[in-house]
């Protein structure tokens, strides 16, 4: 029985339960479903934190394992779910009001998929988990059927997601042909100490391409801005933070510990990943400069962040892997509050245009301070959390001797400050407050943003907790690995 009470199972049952409740309950008694969903996601978060490190159900252990990385990221995804549920509840609906419960219940399934994804150690398991995530996300992106932009976002996500899945499956097929297995440890043992065959390297390339779509790395990024802008904000949040993080966790797992942690792969793919990183940072940063819609803006900022993580990852050392883990947490803590804010802004102003921020510094100083700290943290300004993350990337690149990546990283961090200051400037000096109609934000948002801002500051001044997390994520699997025969 042990292990069946794990986050994945709870998430799936919660999602199904919510949908069933919606269809079985009489009309007029469904009002408590959003509250229950929020409570459930919080309970699962507590459960996940409490159980971290506990082994997966024994019958799953051929495909899924619990190790440091998975136990650090399951709470990450469930935390995302909590935020997404909060945003979903606040999303205004038109014709879809009838199916609000589905709207709220749906994110539970991709979250379960992500939790499975980070503990998978077999490519087939990865494929299954990824599809669970992807299909739910297609639904979510196109959920607001009356809005053309939402439909467009869903369509684009579907086509691009399908394409990336195609690459991934093709890669897995080639991998099986070349290495005779899809299981990480077997591939590792099989390939260790001998030169990689061409089909094997080709398979690695295909899989890398598939994952590059997921993390929106240049040149596979083009879907991100349109989808982020068009999709409902809760879906944007899921894509921008959870889905991107999952892609990186997979990259860390595959290239850092599993399957492709081979010298023969590193020789070929280290320069490839660093080049991807340089291109991604550069394009993401430069393309973010002219953006005036906060969702598009976050899309490009996310691309730039992905670039930094790819640069760290591309060094293919333990330091790089740890950096990505820390960077993802820092990104979660700074980007998610902004996304929650965007939802509220859309509620009030009807769009996510940056000009709605004007005068906010005087109208609602607490919100403005929280947002400012989040944006500056994303810009990597000390003493905020984002600085610790950027510092870690730069340090990794320096110690690996990757000077081109370092130079690009530094220059783009400066250019990045240029666009992260755009909303700050709008909030504080673009217009005086009396020129802007006063609209109050709900008080929970004030507390979330103030808390987030404080977290940036406290963790930035004393990043120890994050460092612990990174150290834990690099720990090996906690179960007796029965399947490595």
């Amino acid at each position, binding site marked *: 029985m042990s292990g069946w009470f794990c986050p994945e199972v709870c998430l799936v049952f919660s999602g199904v339960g919510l949908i069933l409740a919606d269809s079985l309950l009489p009309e007029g008694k469904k009002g408590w479903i959003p509250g229950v969903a929020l409570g459930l996601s919080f309970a699962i978060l507590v459960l996940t934190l409490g159980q971290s490190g506990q082994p997966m159900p024994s019958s799953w252990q051929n495909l899924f394992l619990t190790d440091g990385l998975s136990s650090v990221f399951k709470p990450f995804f469930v935390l995302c779910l909590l935020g997404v549920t909060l945003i979903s509840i606040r999303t205004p609906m038109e014709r879809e009001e009838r199916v609000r419960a589905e709207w709220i219940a749906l994110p539970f399934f991709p979250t379960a998929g992500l939790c499975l994804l980070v503990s998978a150690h077999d490519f087939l398991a990865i494929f299954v988990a990824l599809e669970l995530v992807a299909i739910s996300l297609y639904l979510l992106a196109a959920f607001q059927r009356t809005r053309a932009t939402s439909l467009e976002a869903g369509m684009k996500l579907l086509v691009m997601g399908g394409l990336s899945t195609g690459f991934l499956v093709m890669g897995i097929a080639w991998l099986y042909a070349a290495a005779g297995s899809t299981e990480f440890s077997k591939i590792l043992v099989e390939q260790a100490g001998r030169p990689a065959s061409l089909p094997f390297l080709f398979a690695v390339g295909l899989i890398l391409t598939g994952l590059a779509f997921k993390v929106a790395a240049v040149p596979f990024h083009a879907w991100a801005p349109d989808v982020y802008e068009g999709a409902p904000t809760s879906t944007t949040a899921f894509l921008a933070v959870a889905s991107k993080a999952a892609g990186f966790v997979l990259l860390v797992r595959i290239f850092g510990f599993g399957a492709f942690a081979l010298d023969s792969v590193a020789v070929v793919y280290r320069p490839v990943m660093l080049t991807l990183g340089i291109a991604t940072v550069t394009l993401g940063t430069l393309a973010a400069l002219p953006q005036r819609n906060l969702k598009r803006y976050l899309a490009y900022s996310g691309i730039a962040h992905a670039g930094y993580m790819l640069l760290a990852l591309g060094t293919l050392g333990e330091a790089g892997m740890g950096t990505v883990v820390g960077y993802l947490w820092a990104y979660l803590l700074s980007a998610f509050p902004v996304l929650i804010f965007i939802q509220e802004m859309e509620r009030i102003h009807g769009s996510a245009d940056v000009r709605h921020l004007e005068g906010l510094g005087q109208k609602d100083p607490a919100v403005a301070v929280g947002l400012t700290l989040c944006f*500056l943290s994303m810009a990597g300004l000390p*003493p905020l959390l984002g600085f610790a993350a950027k510092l870690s990337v730069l340090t990794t690149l320096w110690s690996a001797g990757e000077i081109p990546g370092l130079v690009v990283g*530094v220059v783009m961090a400066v250019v990045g400050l*240029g666009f992260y200051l755009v909303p700050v400037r709008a909030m504080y000096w673009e217009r005086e407050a009396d020129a802007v109609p006063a609209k109050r934000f709900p008080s929970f948002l004030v507390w979330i943003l103030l808390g987030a801002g404080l977290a940036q500051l406290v963790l*930035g*001044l004393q*990043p*120890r907790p994050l*460092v612990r997390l990174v150290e834990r994520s690099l720990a090996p699997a906690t179960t007796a690995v029965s399947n490595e025969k």
Partner: protein
Amino acid sequence: MSLTWTLPALLGLPLIGVLAISLGAAPRRTASVVSFLNLIPGFLAFGVVLREGDLLFGGEASFIREVFPVQFRLGLDGLSMALVGLTLVVTLSAMGVAQAQVKRAKEYYICLLLVGLGGLGAFLSLDLFYFFSFHEVALIPSFLLIGIWGQGDRTGAAWRMTLYLMLGSLVLLVGLIGLVWAAPETARSLDWRILGETLRANPIPGAQQTWLAALLLVGFGTLVSLVPFHSWAPGGYASAPAPAAMLHAGVLKKFGLYGLLRLALPLTPMGWKELSWLVGLMLAGNILYLGLAALAQRDFRWLLGFSSAMHMGTIFLGLIGGTVLGLGGALLLMVGHGLSAALGFAVAGEIGNRLGTTWMQDLGGLAKRAPKLWFYLMIAGMASIGLPGLANFSGEILIFFGAWSAHPVLVGIAAWGVVLSSVAMLRAIRSISTGPVPANLAAKEVTDLMGAKEVWPMALLTFLLLAIGLVPNLILGPARPVLERILQP
């Protein structure tokens, strides 16, 4: 009595001020009171340093081999004492000069307090992570100060300054990473004292030193507005509101010089020697090019901005002189320049408030119309051109003597710099004090500085300029052992 609490108190009081103001305390009064109260821990800490030597807050190192070994540690010695003192005084007088009626006073004073806090924290931090971070704390408040309350091309000036400083900071950051990574892996530390000992015991190989010195030079140099990385400075200062310009030109700019003294000079001595021709070229640029540019200015604020950036060249000359005399002169000039630049911008701010302009052709006859204001203008101008008796003179003369043996040509150039700056400043003073009152402004009532309330910030700066000018040992005495240590191989 150890009094180690005074160091965190120095940082805590401004923070308390920021919190109090954001919770609704009267902005101007709170900021002034906090800046004044901050003198108390300051004096206590100075007392300890003078009597017993260095004052430290925070434990010794025991973190080697951790992934991210930052540790919040503060320290004060004879060198940082001078700069901490400068920060405290300039912050206090900036609060005194800040206008009572300013739009959005809350944010204004919070930003000012944060800028001062950034300077203090940087000078007090022993850990490089915090050393760097505190300096950056001042970046965004400065951006807002210029952007919201500035004058002239405030938007452009704010962006230029912020992005330039960010670029400088990041280059510097790479240099710092390099320094830390140059130490053997088992002895890596972010505490600059420990790092210094380690790198003295295991010097960095020559070529690498040159690279690191170059990174530090460009990084710190940008923050100090060394030519060709200077173009953010004059415009930024000209556009900033007076207290912000005082804090920035007076205090924050010294961060770069302090960093060079603390890190670049002692840890990469060979690289520094290797690059001295380049530094020489750049500082000559500061002195001659910015000196000539200062001559061409018609706006008093811009003149101050250029002459402030120009004097950085002289300070750099002291740094590459390779003698304790030169370093001492550089430190003296840092303090003197901090005080005189602050005084200059304070006067310019008062003039701007009263006349609505700082164009020098519009300021004629000020000596008659507002004699007290004119007096402090004279002091600032005379200090800046190096009149004996004021702090800047002692600094410059020591630099010239200290650098003579190593760089006689540069000393010659720097002497011409004194001439240029004298011409520029004296011309300005002549047209401001004795020129004709312009017709369009003749009818305008010009009130002089009224009562002690308006006079004390400038009187305080003037008093210190005189005191340090007459008794340079106030600064040099405590700093001397530290400076000697810098030059020891």
